């Protein structure tokens, strides 16, 4: 299989889906490279390059640069979906849900229910997320717990290039609204990506590592860190199941419970802050639906209850680390 970056996998998926379905449109800030400049056309494909080449291929009617008006961007996606299109909107950073939240959680998420099932809302909102680049408190957040809490939204958080392609394909073809998180630190990471049409169903976790002793659940960049910790412990004969839920809504709880049947020990790794997080969400469900399977306290490895700091050392300490995950696994083994 060809090896590609997470960024390229997303980009080729957008190209392929837009080829396939003329109803798909893209909108966001600088997604067409920045309209109205004095330089070359399509100077860039969004600031992370994910929409590169779309404007040249599909033109300005389908690849729409917008003003800095996030409520209008998400609202326009909502309206275009009600009117029969399949918009893929980009928030330049996930942190900007703050200035567009109403359209996401009061409008898009609720249309189908409020209107008695009489419409579908095939909107995808893509948003780069996560810390690791010293972008500071307002450009580094992992706010997927907030979105996961909203009924009506589906939430996707791919951890590698292949899943990025497979899940974005599914997201675009899904008739429900999907919030699609892309971890900034993963954009340059490479992996083997299946060619051709490749769609991964939502609500099916990936079993990234198989083991006996502990069940580790991690999302996005934390999967990479968990792999490091787990592979290191494997040398000592401590083996873990590593489960990447891939979508937090719907969430594949069954795969986690199945794994717990053999391990009985659970470590949850979540880059987001601890309160009302996906980590505590899964922990809560397990404590209620998988209680008998547990041999030891559930261990959660998350960021602290604090904004994301700027300084390099502080940010490094803020984000859960392979070492922290390793320690957590040892701890649940010991208890």
């Amino acid at each position, binding site marked *: 299989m060809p090896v590609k970056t997470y960024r390229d996998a997303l980009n080729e998926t957008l190209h392929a889906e837009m080829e396939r379905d003329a109803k798909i449109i893209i909108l966001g800030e600088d997604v067409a490279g920045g309209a109205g400049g004095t330089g070359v056309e399509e100077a860039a494909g969004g600031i992370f390059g994910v929409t590169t080449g779309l404007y040249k291929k599909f033109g300005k009617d389908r690849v729409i640069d917008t003003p800095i008006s996030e409520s209008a961007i998400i609202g326009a996606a909502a309206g*275009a979906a009600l009117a029969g299109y399949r918009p893929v909107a980009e928030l330049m950073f996930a942190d900007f849900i703050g200035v567009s939240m109403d*359209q996401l959680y009061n409008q898009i998420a609720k249309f*189908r*229910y409020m209107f*008695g099932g*009489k419409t579908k809302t095939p909107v995808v909102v893509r948003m780069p997320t996560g810390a690791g680049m010293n972008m500071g408190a307002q450009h580094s957040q992992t706010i997927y717990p907030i979105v996961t809490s909203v009924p009506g939204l589906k939430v996707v958080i791919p951890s590698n290039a292949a899943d990025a392609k497979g899940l974005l394909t599914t997201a675009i073809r899904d008739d429900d609204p999907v919030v699609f998180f892309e971890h900034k630190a993963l954009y340059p990471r490479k992996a083997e990506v299946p060619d051709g049409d490749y769609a991964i169903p939502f609500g099916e976790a990936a079993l990234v590592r198989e083991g006996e002793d502990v069940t580790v659940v991690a999302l996005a960049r934390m999967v990479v860190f968990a792999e490091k910790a787990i592979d290191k412990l494997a040398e000592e004969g401590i083996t873990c199941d590593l489960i990447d839920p891939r979508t937090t809504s719907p969430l594949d709880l069954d795969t986690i419970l199945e794994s717990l049947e053999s391990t009985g020990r659970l470590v949850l790794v979540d880059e987001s802050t601890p309160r009302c997080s996906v980590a505590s969400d899964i922990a809560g469900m397990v404590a209620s639906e998988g209680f008998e399977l547990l041999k030891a306290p559930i261990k959660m490895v998350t960021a602290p209850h604090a904004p994301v700091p700027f300084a390099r050392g502080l940010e490094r300490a803020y984000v859960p680390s392979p070492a922290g995950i390793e320690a957590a696994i040892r701890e649940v083994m010991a208890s």
Partner: protein
Amino acid sequence: MTMPLPADRLLKAYRVMKTIREFEERLHVEIATGAIPGFTHLYSGQEAIAAGICMHLDDDDYIVSTHRGHGHCIAKGCDVTGMMLEIYGRADGLCKGKGGSMHIADFDKGMLGANAIVGGGPPIATGAAIATKLDGKGKVTASFGGDGSSNQGTVFEAMNLAVVLQLPTLFVFEDNGYGEHTGTDYAVGSKDIAGRAAGFGMPAKKVDGSDFFAVLGAAGELIQMARDGGGPSTLECTTTRFYGHFEGDPQRYRAKDEVANFRETHDCLKRFRAQVVDAGWLEASQLDALDAEVATDIDTAVSTAQAAPEPAVSELATDVYITY
């Protein structure tokens, strides 16, 4: 003055306005009985605006509406019984009783939804307009909002985006003098909503919203401009609401006789009747006949709604997603 519309269209317009009026006046009565859940915002007094604008729209044109949306729904062709069922929270309502008065939508009629968030609609309208512009069939989207909504940032963003993308959108502002309890002149810094359009690069008109023909004329030009690819525009209609912000509102913020006076001086139905009869465009008897028909329609709607069942509890978590 020559006939602005053929007789059948004039009758249609009157029927729409009268239906809205009867619908709301009847709700005012029924709500007082406690039979209707939630809180409801009546459109009485503003009928000429919804009617004058929607006379130019067909089922493939879109509108987005507000918490005060009954008039927009009726003018856009929603079935009054389906609406009444929804407002009563019944299983056969337009939204299966899950939406209610503030969330009525009817996609077959191009009615993309009332909205309980002030300023929630206009961004959605720009999206519908992006869609119809891509479709290239000359369809337009009308975005209804109040004077109060003209201070919500989302609305300005939508207006600017519509200009940037030259979208076929009409931004309608119904200035009924109040946003909830707060006066328009207090909350709108410029005291002139239409004047804001220029700041976003779009033309605007301002008309007396109690004059159906004034609304019809202004809306006609602006909508035609949008259909012809001329881009978005703004229409401010001054008007008044004959009832409180919501049913039950004591309205102490309004002068005692304010509404009584407006009912005298700014009743769009009285005014329309006088205009068309005096001009000899219609016979009073034709209008009287319509009044009777409309009264029956509303009776039917209410009695149907009263007798209808609520949604089954099994519907509680359906239609959250298509697949999950």
